[in-house]
């Protein structure tokens, strides 16, 4: 095996670790409610929400909504709690449904 001098690691290799299977729940973005405020983005502890463009609004301004990268989402629910616009609801994963 290859090892580095003094156990130096390369940057951002954590991205290999898909933590998406940790949780029992997952967030669902309700796009029509999402105002693109970005609150969920700044709070998400797993850095797995970003705002993505979804066309234009009535005034012709670019409309952005939250999008979850489920590869890393641990289902903590923080995003659903901090969203002031009821745009995120938590669902139980199929596997854990009773």
């Amino acid at each position, binding site marked *: *095996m290859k*090892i*580095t*001098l*003094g*156990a*130096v*690691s*390369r*940057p951002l290799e954590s991205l290999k670790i898909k933590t998406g299977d940790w949780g029992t729940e997952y967030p669902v973005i309700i796009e029509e409610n999402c105002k693109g405020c970005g609150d969920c983005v700044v709070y998400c502890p797993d850095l797995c929400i970003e705002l993505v463009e979804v066309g234009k609004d009535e005034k012709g301004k670019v409309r952005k909504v939250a999008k979850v990268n489920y590869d890393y989402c641990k289902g903590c629910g923080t995003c659903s709690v901090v969203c002031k616009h009821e745009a995120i609801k938590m669902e139980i994963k199929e596997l854990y449904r009773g």
Partner: protein
Amino acid sequence: MMKVVRGFYAVAYSVKLCRPDVICAYPITPQSEIVENIAQMYANGELGNCEYITAESEFGAASILVGASATGARTYTATCSQGLILMSEVLWNAAGMRLPIVLTIANRSLSAPLSIWNDHQDSMAMRDAGIIQMYVENNQEVHDMMPQAFKIAENHKVMLPMMVCMDGYKLTHAYEPVDLLNQEMVDEFLPPYDPPVKMTTKDPYTFGSYATPASYMEFRAAVYNAMERSKKIIEDVYKEWAEVSGRNWGGHIVAENCEDADVCVMAMGSLVGLVREVVKELRGEGKKVGFIKIRTFRPFPAEEIAKAVDNCQKIIVFERSLSMGSDAPVTLDVKSAIHKKAIDVYSPVVGLGGRDVPHKLVKSTIEEVIENKAKPGTYFKGLKDYEEVIV
């Protein structure tokens, strides 16, 4: 340029010529004068862009150097005794992180009881850390060793911290004539530090990762193997130094008159001069005695020693420290080096905590072994009769 200087100045002056980037230390007797002299040079603006930092403890000093070394700086500190063992957590860490920090150790005993005087207990306590250790016999040797230490530690095949050990007071405070090096020669010998990897925002590596059982063992083996590899590199640097400076201090060991010796006597540090002199006298009296100066202690020059003592029946190791519950540290290594040979090893422990080691004591200790009046093993010499009472 020949000048009569004190040991601490011989070190400070030599360190300056090595152009370190970051120096950080904490005062401790009898090391303080080394960094005091460096501080004066810094105050005088003689250290170029070097940052000289007064730490809040030896622990802090070593930690500061870890950060500086990882960032790509040539780093230096000096310490001893309590200060060295206070650093020990960080120094083990620095060795594992493969940071080539160079230290001068002004060897001093360990508490309790508190003693500011010399023996080798402090550096021996660091024996297993992954730090290269070498011991000098006089102030010219320590002056010559500082550039060599940087060159050895910073070699990409080594990348380990290195300690140059000099006896506290006996050398640090002694006036001796020293042929002071000049900048051109040191610059020629010691190129600027070229870190194989460093902390930079341009290439943001993670230093000091933790390892699971899946890789921890390989990293520790890598430190062990780097230490093994350093044997050859140290020898090469010693040789190169002899060529450029004209002063040949020898290799890992210096063996004198051992080929036909029945008894080989070993010593390290400032005791070397006296023991060598006594052995010469005994030779003059027709005794078949040889002498071995051990320079490098880690990595231990086991093969060199085994070869040098090939023809002898007895070995005497003058020990300056103890390993409680076993043989003294140097003896342990010597015994393991000669384990295939039927040689008795005598380990007189002398001069702990600055106890005087007179000529007479060294001579009679060796004579007792020659005359079969001593038993192999670890024993004290120059010890008073004592009885332990509660108060």
